[in-house]
């Protein structure tokens, strides 16, 4: 069971956003993608979820080529993602936002929802119970009735993660989930990502926080200007001068100290 990205190319007009990028994400593994801004990390997410058109190469989910599968159906077959800039309606409450994540596992039809059949009512109750567990898990239950526009950005990111894992995906694509999180929240997120990986979820992580990447990932891919620079275990990458130059910059010493913390 794996997502296999095979020599994928994405072009925006004349600009090549991704060139021959290949990544393999197995169930239960955490693969990180790092790289400077504009390296194509989010574009890679969009290529996998189908929000960006792949001009060459293939994306296979569980050995099925998804080239003709529309994005919403890829989500329905067990993919989930968050956005680098959380996309949310600031007037929606925390609880409702997380409940939105249950859509792919909802079997209610439009007519059933209109008359609220007993089956639909039961499903709603089940989703609410599952939503409550998620909220407790992420320590968000105090602010369940707060609207997203009024809570700190770190909490919004946690809500986004909760929303993404609500439908119990088999693959989870997290785009900078830890940005703006305080230390305890970051630790909570780390634990959660580990726990998810242990239950067999394959996790693709875009993250700028190299300490977090080192802590979590089994495999790390460095993207630079749309192409793969190097890949390997995070500890190995630290030794590689190409990585240091592209990502950490010239003053390697400072960054490696920071990353080691």
């Amino acid at each position, binding site marked *: 069971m794996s997502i296999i990205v095979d020599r994928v190319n994405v072009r925006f007009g004349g600009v090549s956003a991704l060139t021959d990028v290949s990544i393999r994400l197995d169930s239960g593994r955490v693969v990180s993608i790092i790289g400077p801004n504009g390296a194509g990390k989010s574009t890679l997410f969009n290529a996998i979820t189908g929000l960006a058109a792949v001009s060459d190469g293939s994306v296979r989910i569980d050995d099925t080529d998804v080239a003709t599968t529309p994005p919403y159906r890829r*989500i329905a077959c067990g993919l989930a993602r968050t956005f680098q*800039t959380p996309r*949310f309606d*600031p007037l929606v409450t925390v609880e409702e936002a997380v409940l*939105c994540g249950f859509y792919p596992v909802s079997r209610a039809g*439009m007519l059933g929802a209109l*008359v609220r059949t007993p089956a639909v009512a039961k499903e*709603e109750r089940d989703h609410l119970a599952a939503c409550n567990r998620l909220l407790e898990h992420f320590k968000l239950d105090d602010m369940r009735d707060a609207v997203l526009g009024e809570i700190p950005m770190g909490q919004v990111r946690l809500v986004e993660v909760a929303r993404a894992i609500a439908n119990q995906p088999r693959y989870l694509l997290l785009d900078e989930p830890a940005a703006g999180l305080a230390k305890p929240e970051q630790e909570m997120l780390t634990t959660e990502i580990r726990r998810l990986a242990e239950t067999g979820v394959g996790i693709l992580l875009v993250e700028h926080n190299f300490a977090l990447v080192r802590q979590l990932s089994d495999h790390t891919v460095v993207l630079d200007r749309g192409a793969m620079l190097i890949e390997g275990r995070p500890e190995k990458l630290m030794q590689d001068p190409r990585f240091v130059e592209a990502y950490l910059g010239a003053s390697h010493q400072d960054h490696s100290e920071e990353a080691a913390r």
Partner: protein
Amino acid sequence: MKHSFVTRQRPTLVLMAILAIASVFTYGHAFWLDNSIVIAIFALMAISVGLCYGQAGILSMATAGFASVGAFGTAILTTRYGLSPYIGFGFAVVAPMLLAYPIARALTRLSPMPLSMATFLLSGIFEIAVREGGDFTGGYIGLSGIPRLSIADTAQSMHFLAWGLVLLALFLCVNLMHSSHGRAIKTARHDALRATADGVAVPHLLASTFAVSAAIAGVAGWLYAHHLTYMGPDSLTTQVSIQAMLMAVVGGAQTFLGPVVGAALLLLLTLNLPAAETQGMVFGGILVTVLLFTPRGLLGTNWKALMRGRSSGREEPFARPAQPGSGAAISGTSVTDGVGS
């Protein structure tokens, strides 16, 4: 408690209570009963707009068009083929849905402005079809002699039937919006891409919502035909669509009771206008006033916050708190956001 039946269906229960009182006062008064029935018919069309525009963000000018499909459908079935009005009811529900779904699949890809222009033209096509339909649709003369309903042959019973259908429509809409579909509709209205990432087939969902709203309009048309017993080419025109839109916006298109309140308010106001010609002027004035001061409609506005904001001099009641880097494009009314993409 928050998810109990009473909390969820509060709008329906409130309307039921108001109706109980209104029914006592209008009892036996032919004039008020007639007005009450007309208000109920317009309330249904306004609820249709509320679902389509307020919830799903589709600005449709074809509400009266779908109502006329229902009205002419039942008129033709009952007068030409001698069928029961209740078969006509089935037609008035199903036919607008079957028309609306494919149209919406084609149209909801458009951005908000071209979309409403397209529904405007669609409404025009319905009108032309009625005029040029010859004997079949009654052409310019119209169809008269549409039978009254056996279950509601007096104004009093028609009052109860019409408002019963309004309550039913409201009940169904509330249920829908409190389901996974309803949450998906709200997400899609605000940000279609976000809804896609939730696993929602956005074009299908919006088209289905449009179809349900068309069915509600069709029921309004059915009531209209059997209440007035006459359908002509000038009965349910684009003018009526615009009125229904205005009612929903004035009352609060994103609230459940708003469209009903808007319908009652504007129709009661019409009664007291000196001449029919002044209607456009007054309605236009009301629309401008509402959009300037309470863009979310009478019921959609947080009046307490508005009053407090006035006295303290600042604090915009509808301003959403800006988050650094939230990036979401939010416009004042936001109802049309994200439909096109």
